[in-house]
């Protein structure tokens, strides 16, 4: 924009302009986002879209498919495009846009998730639980994996689109968490020199249970074991012998 701010997306009509930020992280630099609505179209955009006065349609619209829109600043707009669909629209100037957004009940079918579980700016507290899921994969394989590889799995199919420099903060957060996890969970060893985690293979139900219990303790969540199934298989036909 002409004030050097760079929103992710820009939407314009003849009379209005709206700025959109794609995000799932409340770690966003919101001060920068506050500049977006103040900017006008840059000269090249005006050349393409027409040079005419357009009013700001509102504060920055955060569009996310992650839960947690409540964690965005209260004066900014946020729309969750993934079920359960939700929106917070405290600052919309374009009445027609506001009406349409309030009427919107979500997409008729599920939208693609791109396996996205974090953004480059996601902090330690935002990725702890996702990491616990990915570590199950590492543990089941009995593999050695470095922090950068796990950061890529957190970014899902967006990983190739983020530069190594852009991932640096996320990789650092992953490394910090891996080191902490290894100090608490049996079967995980942190290798500082290579920023890698070495996992002992969890190839039995007992090993997986033990890992899950320690992981739950590390995450400080309740670990439920009060289910009836202990077998790998429950066969509804087992009582019959044909």
């Amino acid at each position: 924009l002409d004030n050097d701010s760079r929103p992710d997306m820009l939407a314009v009509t003849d009379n209005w302009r709206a700025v959109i930020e794609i995000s799932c992280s409340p770690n966003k630099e919101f001060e920068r986002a506050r500049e977006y609505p103040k900017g006008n179209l840059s000269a090249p955009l005006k050349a393409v879209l027409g040079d005419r006065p357009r009013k700001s349609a509102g504060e920055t619209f955060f569009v996310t498919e992650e839960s947690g829109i409540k964690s965005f600043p209260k004066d900014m707009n946020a729309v969750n495009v993934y079920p359960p669909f939700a929106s917070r629209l405290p600052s919309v100037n374009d009445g027609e846009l506001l009406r349409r957004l309030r009427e919107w009940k979500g997409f008729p079918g599920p939208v693609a998730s791109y396996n996205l579980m974090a953004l480059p700016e996601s902090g330690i507290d935002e990725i702890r639980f996702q990491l616990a899921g990915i570590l199950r994969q590492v543990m089941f394989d009995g593999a050695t994996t470095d922090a950068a590889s796990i950061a890529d799995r957190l970014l899902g199919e967006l990983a190739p689109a983020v530069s190594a420099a852009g991932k640096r903060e996320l990789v650092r957060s992953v490394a910090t968490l891996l080191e902490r996890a290894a100090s608490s969970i049996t079967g995980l060893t942190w290798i500082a020199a290579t920023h890698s985690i070495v996992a002992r293979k969890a190839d039995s139900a007992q090993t997986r249970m033990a890992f899950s219990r320690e992981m739950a303790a590390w995450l400080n969540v309740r670990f439920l074991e009060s289910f009836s199934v202990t077998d790998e298989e429950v066969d509804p036909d087992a009582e019959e012998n044909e």
Partner: protein
Amino acid sequence: VTEQQTDPPSPPPSSRKGFFEMVDTRLGQNRELLEATGKVPASQLKVFWLEVDPRHHPTPPAADGWRLLEPHFFFYSQPGVPGSNQIWLDAANERIWYVYSFGKRDDVEAILRRDLLSRRGVDRAWLAERFLESVQRKAGYTDRGFRFSFKGALSRDKDPEGMPRFSGKFWLGNQVSVEQESFLRLSQETFSKSSLRMGRRSEGKSSSNSGLLIEVYSRGHMTVTTCDDTEEILGLINDIGTSYAGDLRELERRRESFPRPVEYRFGMKLDIEQFRAQVEAGVGPTKLWMQEYAEEDGLHRFVGVDLHTNDLLNLDLADSYAYLVGTPKACMNAAPRLMTLSAEFLSGKTDMYYEGAQLFA
């Protein structure tokens, strides 16, 4: 049912050709026994379809009773008990293995579980209710009954005696009374079916028995009660495997090009707490080992591993719907597995969609 626990002592066939000749002979003997005595022979043909992820190159264990007869064709005989629970495994297809036996189903299944299903890359073919119905529809067979079977795998009761369970098996003749029909219709609409019985009349005018009678189970196997055309039944076995593999490959091909989720709709509300207990511990039949990482307004988001292949999966779960997304190259057998098991857990109807169209149906 006549008692017959072991196979005849004659040496087992040692080639595919010999095996299929034996199947023809045994089916003929069974048919003659049925026609002569009216009794269903105990030694019926059982078929299991196993899904195989070729990335893992699984093979049967070299020892423990398994031996290679010819390329991709294996034979199992229980060590020390010759003639009992013989199994033939045709592993020529890279995606679906075909397992044949005339042994006791529970025994055969236990062997498969121990020697094959425990190996990485091998899973059942999960033939959910819609798939079973499509088998019957495509073959043009008549409805000869069904079974629903429910064990409360998501029960909160730790005592197995307290686990809710019920099962029912309905054998249908040619005519059903009006009173029974309304009950049957209601039960079919209410419960998910774990197997379908289907068949056709005999082409021989003198025979009062069925020309073909089979039961196909959602957990990926079939029992052939009687059949007067061996080629027909072998063709059907191949068609089911080919159709399942085709649907799976199509789902994987589409997933590879775009990360759209597989969508589930549950007819009854799922107990998410108990589901979470299973998948977070990595036990139970779902073969999923996951971590819940977010929850908002009833939508629970999980990430973790499919123990079948070690592929990373994302699962978003509400009590009446769910979305499953694999990584681009992931084996998607988790999709029909979750479909079949959720129907079993709930004993209610579950539907599965991709891009708005029903899958495996």
